């Protein structure tokens, strides 16, 4: 009983414990990529456009990773129920 509870707990922590960090990392990578395009690829001629575009893509990517995190365990559980 206790063992089952703790494995369930660890699985939940593994599945949902990284939500915050993944969300933030996606936004920062989008923003960083946008800034890089602006400053180094186009030598600042297009500043600030790619920064904003990159930021928007980063935010979307963050929400998409949240969606993925929510979808994956649910789909896995459905499969397991179908099998068992």
């Amino acid at each position, binding site marked *: 009983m206790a063992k089952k509870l703790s494995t369930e707990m*660890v699985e939940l922590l593994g599945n949902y414990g990284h939500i915050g*960090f993944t969300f933030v990392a996606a936004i920062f990578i989008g923003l960083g990529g946008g800034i890089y395009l602006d400053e180094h690829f186009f030598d600042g001629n297009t500043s600030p456009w790619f920064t904003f575009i990159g930021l928007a893509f980063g935010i979307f990517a963050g929400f998409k990773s949240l969606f993925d995190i929510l979808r994956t365990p649910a789909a896995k559980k459905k499969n397991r129920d179908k099998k068992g």
Partner: protein
Amino acid sequence: MEHPILFISIILEKLGLPIPHGPVGHGFLEQLCAPYMTYTWFVMVFLVVVGKLTLGNIEMIPGKGQNFWELLIGGMYDFFTENMGQELTDKLFPMIATFALYIAVGNLIGLIPGFMSPTASINTTLALTLIVWVTHHIIGIQAHGMAYIKHFLGPIPVLIPLMLPIELISNIARLLSLSIRLFGNIMAKETLLGILFMLAGAYFAPLPIMILGVLVSLVQAMVFVLLTVVYFGQAREHAH
């Protein structure tokens, strides 16, 4: 802040080897003698020696030591099979199980005074994460060939210009989040313990944090391995 006392560094210094004063040294030898490197080797030696001592000769009826390892390795094996399938587990079990043991021991070793967690350095965790990240792309390419790119194109062809950057960004975010989460948790534990030892070590102030530290160490090792397994499984699956 006071420097933590790291006994391997002290021994190496007595032997006349250069010890870096910052977190990373300048010369090649100094980089090899950085604490996170020496303690990584310490963990490696520890795992090899303990494995050798407890598993000297494998018997049909397991003794105490063999029982422990059978429980641990068998539990991990079942867990991996459940999450990423039999074939991948057979191929990659040694790598992931080694990561699990190394990270768990490396995290826990930092709780003993005089030791340092090798995982409290971004270099170690980034190296582990890069191996995992590259491996999951290799698995995907092996399983699907060129069709692996469909994983990054989203469900509808019209949405490709929108979905491709988003998928790429969220894939690279895995690299960042996996490495920095392990590094951040363990470094926070080490730093907090160091500060509490300095402030009120004589009154057992670090004791509650050490109990929490055991929990954090094991959970972070589990989380790293679980996410590794999930990524490998996802790379193998068909694109939606």
